[in-house]
Every structure is written in C-alpha cells, then in structure tokens.
C-alpha cells in the first residue's frame, strides 16, 4: 500500500517561499512524475515527502496515517538519489543489505531478499564488487536494489537517469517502467526531462515555481494543456505559440499549434524555410517570413527535402488548435 496525500504542504527557506501551500494525492500503485524546469521545487517536494526536509506547514499522510513528523526511515519509503549515493567502501552485497541490517533482520531473511533483488536486477555476478568497479548503469541498479529490498510503500526517484549517457538512459527508463509493472508499487519520479515524464508516467505533475500547473495523464497534458506554460513545456519540439492578428482571428490572445499538427503542402500559411533538421523518421523545418511574428516549427513525417530559402505552404489542422486567453489559461 502506498497512498500519499499532501494537504496544504508548504516549504520556506527563511523568508523565501519555495513551495506555496499545495494539495496533491498520489494513489496506491501509481507512477507519478514531477516535472518542471530546474528550480521549480520538484526535488524539494520529493525531499519533503521523503522526510529529508521538514515542512513549514501542512500535512503529509501516507496510507491515511499522518507522517509529517515521522523521521525518514519510519515513513516506509525508499529513495534513489541522483548521485546513486552508494557506500563506496562496501561491496554491492553490503550496500544492498545495509537497510536490512539497520532494521535488524535475520541473516536468512537478509540473504533471501538480497539474492532476490540481485536476480531481479541482474546483479548476481557483481555482488562482491565495490561501487567503484561498476559502470553507471550497474550503479544505478545497485541503488534501485538497495531501495527494493526494503519492500517500501513507495519509491522516490530523484533524477536518477541524469548521470547516464543517452543510450543507457533509454534502457534504464524501460527497466524502471518494467520494474513498476512487476512490483506495482507507488513510484514518485522527479525529472526535468519531459520525454521521461511522457514515457513513464501514469500521472504527470507539472510544477513551476512551486505551483502545480497541471496534473494529468501524459495524453491529457498533451491534448489539453491547461495554460501556456504546460503547452510550451510538454511536447517535443515545443508547440508553436502565436500572438497577434492570427490569434485574434480565433478570438484568443495566443493560439498554439503543435509542429506535428501542421502539414507541408497546400494551406493558408506561406513561409521561407530556415533551418531544417533531418532525423530520418521525421524532418523538422523552422519556417519564417510567414506573416506571423514567430518562427513556425513544422514536423513532416519521413524524409522530406526542402532547402533553406525554399518557399513552402503550411496547413495547420484547425481542430488541433489550442486557444489561450490573456490570462494565459486555455479557452475551452
């Protein structure tokens, strides 16, 4: 069980309010991702839940029981740190055993759990090595191993993949998702990478300056961003946000259209190709001189050849248009 409720939780460092009072419920078994630009308070929020920081106000409940004043170890949560935080002088086995040893568990139980975790994470061959002798991905797995042996109510991940190279990151992303499938334990995952958020989450919490901008499933956020910030943050490449007359034509302050919802061909907009990015599967064109103030990014599926300076016509899909009012909020 791992239902976590935050009720008016607030954090101040001195006079600086990092997290204004905030409510959030994380259901049992959910994979929740906190995402936002750096300095948005997502790591602080995670540390508040972990108990590594004290709240300045409000209440945290885990499975209905108040946990606000409990020390970190008593909350039944396990955390995987950005730097992995492995103990360098201990072997992998001792690292993974450490929380069990601190809990005073019997030798057989310790061995059973560690062997099981090592098997799940493919670490059996490395149990006698030290962290210094492991690669980044293996260290990451040891850190996860140390978390799962405790059989916690929820896992907390603090940007666990940011120290890995791109290829390994994709692999570990998959492994963590599979782990969640298998354990079905609540997981809270902090990242600044919206791709990680979109691919892994059941529920995404978008944060900015300590405020929750929107909570929802990845596709909800993609389809109906609640405001301009979410619209610009979710999706890659980012949504085209257009002000001015064109927006006025749609009775909005700003209109947004995703690059994948504009097709190259016959359409109302015309412009000059600037930079084009060829990914093979897709081609991105940055089009300017469209009569709009902004450079428009367009995604064309497959390999499409247009040189810089070519004039092309663009057809936005009008039903995929997002409209935002002068307060930045979405107009239904």
């Amino acid at each position, binding site marked *: 069980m791992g239902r976590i409720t935050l009720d008016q939780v607030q954090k101040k460092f001195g006079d600086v309010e990092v997290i204004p009072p905030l409510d959030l419920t994380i259901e049992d078994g959910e994979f929740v991702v906190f995402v936002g630009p750096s300095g948005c308070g997502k790591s602080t929020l995670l540390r508040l839940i972990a108990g*590594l920081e004290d709240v300045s106000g409000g209440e945290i409940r885990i499975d209905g029981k108040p946990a606000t004043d409990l020390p970190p*170890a008593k909350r039944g949560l*396990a955390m995987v740190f950005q730097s992995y935080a492995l*103990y360098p*002088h201990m072997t992998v086995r001792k690292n993974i055993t450490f929380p069990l040893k601190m809990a005073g568990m019997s030798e057989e139980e310790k061995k059973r759990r560690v062997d099981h975790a090592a098997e799940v994470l493919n670490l059996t061959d490395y149990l006698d090595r030290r962290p210094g002798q492991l690669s980044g991905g293996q260290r990451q797995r040891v850190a996860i191993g140390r978390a799962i042996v405790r059989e916690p109510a929820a896992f907390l991940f603090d940007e666990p993949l940011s120290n890995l190279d791109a290829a390994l990151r994709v692999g570990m992303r998959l492994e963590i998702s599979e782990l969640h499938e298998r354990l079905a334990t609540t997981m809270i995952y902090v990242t600044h990478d919206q791709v990680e958020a979109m691919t892994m989450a059941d529920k995404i919490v978008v944060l900015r300056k300590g405020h929750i901008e929107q909570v929802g499933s990845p596709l909800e956020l993609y389809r109906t961003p609640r405001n301009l910030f979410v619209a610009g943050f979710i999706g890659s490449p980012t949504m085209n946000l257009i002000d001015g007359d064109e927006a006025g034509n749609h009775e909005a302050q700003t209109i947004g259209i995703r690059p994948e919802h504009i097709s190259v061909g016959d359409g109302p907009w015309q412009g000059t190709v600037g930079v084009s990015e060829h990914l093979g599967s897709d081609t991105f064109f940055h089009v300017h001189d469209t009569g709009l103030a902004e450079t428009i990014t367009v995604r064309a599926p497959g390999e499409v050849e247009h040189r810089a300076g070519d004039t092309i016509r663009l057809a936005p899909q009008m039903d995929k248009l997002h409209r935002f009012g002068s307060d930045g909020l979405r107009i239904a």
Partner: protein
Amino acid sequence: MATQHSRAAARIMIAPSVVLLLAWMLIPLGMTLYFSFLRYNLLMPGNNPFVGFENYAYFVTDPAFQAAIVNTLLLVGGILLITVVGGIGLAVLLDQPMWGTGIVRIMVISPFFVMPTVSALVWKNMFMNPVNGLFAYIADVLGMQPFDFLTQAPLASIIGIVSWQWLPFATLILLTAMQSLDSEQLEAAEMDGASAWSRFYHIKLPHLSRAITVVILIQTIFLLSIFAEILVTTNGGPGTASTNLTYLVYAESLLRFDVGTGSAGGVIAIILANIVAIFLMRMIGKNLDA
C-alpha cells in the same frame, strides 16, 4: 623521438637538485655512521681510534636506553591515540552547522601555530606549576592538594602538552576529509534507517579511514623525535622518567660530549623509526590504496 629528447633533457635539468638533495642527506648520514664506530669524546681529545660496535654496546646496555625506548613508544602511542580520537570528535562537531563557525575553526587550529618551546613553557609555568599554575589554583579553590604534574607524572604531562599541539593538525585533516563526504550518502543512510551512531560508524568513519592513516603516518614521523617540549619542561627527568630516544642521544653527545655514543644512538633511532614505519605500513598502509 621528441619525447625521448625531452626526457633526456628533463633528466639533465633535474640532476643538480637531485645530486644536491642526495648529498644533503647522505653526507650527514655517512658522518654519523662513521662517528658511531669511533671512540670520540670531546672531553678526551686523542686520535679517535676505531672501536667497532663498542659505542653501540655501550648505548644499548645503558639502563636509560630501555627506559628511553619505552618512553618513546608510550609518547608516540599515547599522543596518537589522543589526537586521532579527539580529532575525529572535534571534526564531527565542527562539521555541524553552527553560529560563528569561522572563528571557532580558527581558534581550534591556532595551537598548531605556537612554537613547541613556547607552548611547553606556557603549559609548564602558567598551567602545571604547583605554586602559580592555573591547575594548582583550581585545586586550591576546590580544597585539594595541588598536583605537581611535571614531577609526579612527567611523561603523562608531556603527552598532554604535545597532544594539545597536534590535536589541531589531526582535526584540520579530518575535518576537510569529513567535508568531502557526499551529503547524499548520509541522506541515503538516513532513509535506510541508520541512527546517528550507525551513520557515524558505517559511513563517516570508513570515509575518514584514509585521512586517519595520513594523520597517523605524518604524526608518527614527528612524534618519534619530540625534543623541545622535554628539554624545556622536565629535562628528561626526574631520573629518566621522561627521557625519550631523541633526548637520550642529546644527553650522550651534548651533555656528556660523547660524540661516538651519541652517533650510535642516532643510528639506533633511525633503525627504530624504520621498524615502526614498516609496522605502520603493514597495519594501515592498505588504506592508502585507492
């Protein structure tokens, strides 16, 4: 070719300093060895005949020799124990965030800047003196008999004085090592349910092992040759109660003007230092491997 050339050039260029340093070390060592085999007493001028190991036999059979060896080991061991344990304790305390950290740290480190003779004299005259010392005054206030430290417990007093001088050094090294500990490791241990003591024992102490080794090795080198503190406080006495090997060599060569026996003592001190070094490296040297 270029690297071979530059290597040869480098060798030629550092050769003068290597030769100078080698001579600097080898000439005194050679002369000490040479004198140790001569009957060479400044009070009995003569032709300084070669006498083999007579000086060594004389030095080793001197009743003061055994006392000096024991005192040397007690001094080194006692001071190491106090400074390492105290240094770890102080490092843990100073690592805590608190008000006035900067000033407190400077004050903790300052004893190291006081020269040994001065600090020993301050301790002798202002603290341990049975008539005018602060400790005597405190004993007086409490209605107790003042304790004459340097007469009744000379070796322990010197251990105390020298520990006071070296504690800052140990603290400084251990504090910097402590500060290099990744705070996420401590947080991870906290999440893992480790108590404050467990975090210290399982995380901080192993992290400090290399720094502790460095402290022990460096201090041993200096502590084997404590001299100034003994000279200005007890003069090695009463009797030989606070005579260490260095002081015994001084007594032989400069108080009895027996250069031969003094040199023999010096050579024995070198051998002893090397034995201690070998034992130390065997015991704790593996901590230095990365």
